[in-house]
């Protein structure tokens, strides 16, 4: 084990954190309103003028590739009365036009370029003031991230060292072959905690991940982010349940062809890799007890998309099942969490510490401290 953290492994969040609307409201306000969200893939924005709409927490966004080829993001509300300027993915040759009263914005800079009936109805309005509210964009691995604030913490600073610890993968050299939305009845944090829990691999995934050598599972936290790797037990890559080896990724080193990776960008961007795929599955809260997983599959062009989705879903569906069961029991007044695996579940404590630090806008608490 790589990880060293002197505080004991403990479950730091109360049951309320998983079912109380006030907790979710606080998470939206203090965390999701001010963090980087995975919102698109470059594959979804290939042509200049193409755009998608995506949610970054409570902020609906437009993500658009400008005529200059640059991908930008703006808040998806008309500055007039708040209608969504775009309601679906599309492509513009010039402006983004709000369907409510026809206001038009430049796709490259969000500037308000047309107000119908301006002379008669908006005579003293300074249009320079009313462009689309900009958001921030960062791109890594063919994935587009956005931050609701225009003056966000720089994306590179957010990633930190993380890109150096994911092995030989270069997801930007792959193609997005599939995108699936999965809704489930569980609080988003349960799904993150499941992803960074090492212990469950042996048991919950005893069929789907049995080919991998869990005792040699390596993982570490990089601040709030997390990276991990485990090798195959032995035997042929092509025989393993989720790495059939039909379309291996060409650019991988030997280690990555014979193992799987699982990673997390705090707070909710989960990723996993195999010899055949790089998947991202951001989990976002809809309500305290419902979430949506946005699964994107990157692979070599021509790989069998359905098969890769099935491989990813083989373990994701098992995780969803477990999370939904825990969520259902959470409502019980006597629900409580017991002792955690000292090393295999340590990442959960770290996740909680980082979450509480953001929510309380203070220092990262020691695991032994009871949060206010």
């Amino acid at each position: 084990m790589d990880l060293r953290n002197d505080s004991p492994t403990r479950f730091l969040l109360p049951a309320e954190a998983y079912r109380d609307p006030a907790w979710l409201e606080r998470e939206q306000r203090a965390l999701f309103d001010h963090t980087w969200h995975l919102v698109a893939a470059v594959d979804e924005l290939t042509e200049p003028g193409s755009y998608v709409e995506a949610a970054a927490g409570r902020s609906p966004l437009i993500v658009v590739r400008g005529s200059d080829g640059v991908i930008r993001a703006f808040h998806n509300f008309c500055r007039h009365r708040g209608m969504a300027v775009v309601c679906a993915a599309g492509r513009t040759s010039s402006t983004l036009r709000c369907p409510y009263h026809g206001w038009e914005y430049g796709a490259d800079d969000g500037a308000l370029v047309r107000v119908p009936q301006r002379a008669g109805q908006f005579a003293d309005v300074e249009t320079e003031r009313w462009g689309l509210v900009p958001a921030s964009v960062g791109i890594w691995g063919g994935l587009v991230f956005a931050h609701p604030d225009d003056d966000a913490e720089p994306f590179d600073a957010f990633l930190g060292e993380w890109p150096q610890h994911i092995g030989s993968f270069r997801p930007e050299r792959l193609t997005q072959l599939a995108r699936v939305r999965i809704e489930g009845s569980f609080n988003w944090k349960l799904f993150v905690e499941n992803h960074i829990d090492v212990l469950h691999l042996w048991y919950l995934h005893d069929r789907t991940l049995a080919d991998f050598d869990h005792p040699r599972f390596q993982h570490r936290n990089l601040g709030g982010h997390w990276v991990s790797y485990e090798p195959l037990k032995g035997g042929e890559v092509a025989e393993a349940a989720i790495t059939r080896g039909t379309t291996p990724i060409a650019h991988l080193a030997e280690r990555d062809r014979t193992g799987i990776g699982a990673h997390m960008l705090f707070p909710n961007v989960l990723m996993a890799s195999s010899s055949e795929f790089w998947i991202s599955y951001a989990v976002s809260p809809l309500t305290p007890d419902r979430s949506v997983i946005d699964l994107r599959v990157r692979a070599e062009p021509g790989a069998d998309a359905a098969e890769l989705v099935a491989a990813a879903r083989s373990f994701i569906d098992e995780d969803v099942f477990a999370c939904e069961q825990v969520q259902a029991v959470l409502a019980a007044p006597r629900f409580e969490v017991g002792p955690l695996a000292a090393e295999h579940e340590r990442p959960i404590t770290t996740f909680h510490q980082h979450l509480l630090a953001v929510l309380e806008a203070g220092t990262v608490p020691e695991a032994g401290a009871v949060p206010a």
Partner: protein
Amino acid sequence: MTAVDTVGQAGSERATFLLPKHAYLDAGWYAREQRELFGKVWNLVAAEIDLPEPGDVLPVQVGCHPVLLVRGTDGVIRGYLNMCRHRGMALACEAGHAGANVRCPYHGWEFAADDGSLVRIPQRSGQFADTDPNAWALLPVAVQSWAGLVFCNPDPDAAPLEEFLGELPQRIGPFDPLRLTQVARLRVPLRCNWKLYIENHIDVLHLWYLHADSLGMFDHAGFAHDWVGPHWVSDEVLRPGADRPRGAMLPIAHIPDEERDVLRANLIFPNVPTSSSETMWITYQVVPTGPETSELDIRVLGEPGSQLDAESEATLLAVLRDEDGFAVEQIQRVLRSPKFAVGPLASAHELPITRFHRLLLERLA
């Protein structure tokens, strides 16, 4: 009437959005509206045809007040608090027929339909020997009708409905709804605060854009609108040579020819948009169901013998639900964005929104 070619502000009022974001989100604001606005105004609660026979009863919710509408033996519709004077049981939970007396299912107390008086207490001599029935009549709530629509005002100091409506009945065109038949009733759930839908209804500007296809045959430049007390009336006419959307509904017989090319849109304050055309006279009440939800209760009246055919229904819902409803649901969704605030309003075309806000704030103060 304020014709749409008026440049600048009507009078000295500046078009401004006066309500804060939390008016569309907050449970406390919602409760205050239920108490101070809906609890003290004439609410549309039913149509006369919902209680066709003497003795019919219909429970309705009026703000915080559960009300039982009762058509008496004399044919008059009255309202009482839907609460037995014994231990508070609801006298009726669904539409039905009570006859001359309304009987509480809990302990059998009976109240006269015509005046709410307590006329029977089972086991009275043994169990309620000292009880004076005259003290325990049902609590009346003001109920009056206009144009076949039944209104209720829970405020004991309410002025009559006639005074509340003022000149509105004379300003909504040459229609007599009592000569029409209800051909359809449609309910559409909306994921938005009720006020957003009303603001959309009284916004003149959006007609050109949101309804570019569905209402493009009308001459918005000639759109005329006015306030009649707290109510709002408007009309516009078909552009010369244009075809109005054709369905299979019969033209209304009793209107003059010049009315046939007119599209009217009105608002009975606070939450009952109405509209009329050659073939239909409709009300589409926006019933609040929560801070962020409401229900559109659409009643379509037409010429007797007319039917709401599939094409007419689709055309109607395209405008009311798929265009207007869709737009306001998007706005509701963005209200929680930390970056959202309302911007500048159209100086004349959106001035009705400012007036609507003032009318609300007067009552909520």
